[in-house]
């Protein structure tokens, strides 16, 4: 619509460079879903309250709905789509399934990304650190218990 505001934005997305023409004030969430077709990142509130839109920005977990697209210029973004390729899934995702951590599944992509960011930074978290790491991701189904078990189990597998 108002193309005057739009800019060319170049960033690293899931290991590949992308170039888009977008309003830099638009949220990264909107850009990912509506411009780039990556619907794995979910939108639950649009206000940074639910964590369903969690992605990694330079290896840190962020609510993509709160990140203006202009802020990702030249940076590295990683979404849930990067964790499974072809028939292979990430170990964290395997553990989520093994432990029964996926119910309605709407929080799962964001939850997995928060777990992924945690294990990148701290491969051997204790149960309290796991709780803190996912405390920005709301889940109404699970009571979090089996999610926490899955993340701790993934950390255990990392050890080996």
């Amino acid at each position, binding site marked *: *619509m108002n193309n005057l505001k739009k800019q060319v934005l170049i960033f690293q997305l899931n290991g590949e460079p992308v170039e888009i023409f977008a309003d830099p004030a638009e949220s990264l969430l909107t850009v990912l*879903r509506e411009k780039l077709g990556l*619907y*794995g*990142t*979910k*939108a*639950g*509130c*649009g*206000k940074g*309250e*639910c964590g*369903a839109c969690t992605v990694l920005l330079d290896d840190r977990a962020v609510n993509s709905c709160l990140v203006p697209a202009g802020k990702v210029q030249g940076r590295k973004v990683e*979404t*849930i*789509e990067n*964790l*499974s390729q072809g*028939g*292979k*899934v990430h170990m964290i*995702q*395997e553990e*989520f*399934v*093994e*432990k*029964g951590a*996926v*119910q*309605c*599944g*709407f*929080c*799962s*992509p964001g939850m*997995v990304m928060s777990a992924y960011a945690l294990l990148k930074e701290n491969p051997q978290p204790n149960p309290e650190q*796991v*709780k*803190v790491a*996912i*405390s*920005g*991701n*709301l*889940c*109404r*189904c*699970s*009571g*979090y*218990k*089996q*999610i*926490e078990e899955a993340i701790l189990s993934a950390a255990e597998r990392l050890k080996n």
Partner: protein
Amino acid sequence: MTLKTPEKSTRRYGKAEGTDYQSPEVWSKVTGKAVYGIDHAMPGMLHGKILRSPYPHARIKKVDTTAAEALPGVRAVLTGTELESKPFGIAVEDELPLAVDKVRYIGDEVAAVAAVDLQTAERAIKAIKVEYEELPAVYDPAEALQEGAPQLHDNFPGNVAWERELERGSSSAAFAGADVVVEESFTIPAIHPAYLEPISCIAVDDPYTGITLHTALQSPDAVRKIVAGALNYPLSKVHVNGPVMGGGFGGRVYGNLKVYILSAMLAIKSGRPVKIQLTREEEFTAGRPMIAAAIKMKMAVKSDGTILGREADIITDNGAYSGQAPWVSKTLSERNDSVYRIPGIKTRVRLAYTNKIPTGQYRAYGNQVANFATESLIDMAAKKLGLDPLEMRLKNCVREGDITVHGLQVGKCGLSECLQAAAREIGWDHKKAGHGYGLSVAIHANGSLVFDKNFRGASALARLELDGRITLFTGEQDYGQGTHGAFAQIAAKALDVRPAQITVESKETKTAPFSTGALAMRQTTVGGKAIQLAAEDLREKIFKAAAELTGEPVTMKNSVLNTMSGRTLELGEIAYHYHNNTSGLNLTGEGKFVPEESDYDESGYGNISVAYSFAAHAVELELDKTTGAITVNRLVAAHDSGRIVNHLTARGQVYGGVAQGIGMSCFEGCLFDEGRMANATLADYKIPTALDLPEIDPLFIEIEDPVGPYGSKGLGEIVMVPVIGAVANAAADAAGVRITDLPLTAEKIYQAMAGWECEQ
């Protein structure tokens, strides 16, 4: 990608039989590939938006849509006056698709538009000019019932949406003969299901197929009927095709009917698919939370702790329109009476219209609301009599063979075992000094036979595919509870095949058998029984076809058929044989579970369900006496849901349901300021995070029930019910004073301990 069988769960109670199978759809969810309603789009789709009332109560004088219609990109505009709709509703017909003469709450639907993109639709909404004449409003349900209160609906005088007075046994004799009477007033706010995915719907109007609603629902067939009625379409021309659902918890049984009806009307008018998606704010301000309640209750007790009777005067807050509130009020006002042996009850319940958000239902249908009152009174009576709350519950709780005060026939019942297990596990006999302990119990029906007198059961089809796999067709919905995985396990057991050979289809009403849907905790018991019967029927048909093919009797083991002479046959061979002999049919088993007619009378007395599940929860918490804040350390949830089909997903149900109960007990509730919802965000309407929950220990007391499939009963709703009473009792134990107004915030506990008189 290989589908793995998760390791066996560790559990202290219950049998290790049964697997932890999960339906493969968890893989699409965890990889981000599952398509939810919000992800879904159609070619040529328009975006719809609803104009809502800014006033709690006002007369509509004029709606001018000229400017909106003139905006480039706007394809359809709807107002109430142009629609010739008759009122629709779930329990009471009191709603119109769009307001015609007046608006009754902040958020009431006034106009709707469809445009080429969301921004244009939003601009069009803002361009609609509405002249209102404000009317006096009423927000408090007790005030609404008083004479002279502003009236919401002309045909519901006195703002009474529904009421009921009921006496069973002799309540007055009970109170005359009581050694002790305990009495208290309790208030419970409206609770939002707060499913994480906001409701959306794409409506498609096709001249050949009719209307198709692409929206995820717990009861697609129930919604389809109402939408067909509101549109004046034949039922066979309205379909639901559900995407993956981001949580329901009762909130998506009927979901948001206005969204479905208005998207369909916009699709008809524009001739294009129309998507309406609620924002999170709309979910709170125009969604359907569970009714708030004020419960005045008293209980007559003998000195040995025997309960003689109980009386209740209940006012429930309907909001502006009724939704399911009359039915929720009914369950709220009576289900708790059946968990104990109570000889006489007397209940008055009134559902009042107020100028607030219309209400709906939430997991457990109000049973958990009344649990707060009933279980608080039990502890109050025990305290007064110097009895142990555990002993008092064990003395009065229902047992197998009982007929309760409302006529429920208690079949297999592990309630006292649940109580003993929960108390033992929490350390009831060796309590930590200074900590608070509380108990609470619950009964919950497995599908209500009074819901629809003519339709009480469920049906299913089991079809043998040409490749030897099996497809189950059911109207029962799975949105993460594990229903479809459990159905695959049930059918696998009946057929002696692996669950992974089975696919469950439920989301398209065009092909799925009609179903009451995911409500009233009926799916495993009632829907699962139909699955078992369908699978057994298919097994017999397979045997018959195999015998015809081979000319000798056959047996089946691990998906392979064996003849007497030692020949083996794959299921696919039988499928093809039948297929060729019938010119294209598949071997299909039919399952019809039709519960016997129950002898309930007009007052609702009678056995209203095929089975009942039971639970006892025990809580241990600590209280910070300087702030009044409670920290729930541990909750033991002991459940008799019969034989557990799947321990992994059953544990998930307990953890999740208890978490919702903790939220309701400790911090949730819709707050209103002059009719405006004051906490309409997920930051202000706080639901539990990972840091807010206690250690939760599920215990399954697995007593086989004869009705459900392979001895199982329902679990999904009852998990939440006892939490409220158990937390309230533990908080009262720690504080020495009792809070009777949910949620149990630090502020209220501190003020009560300090002896402050405060307004509730």
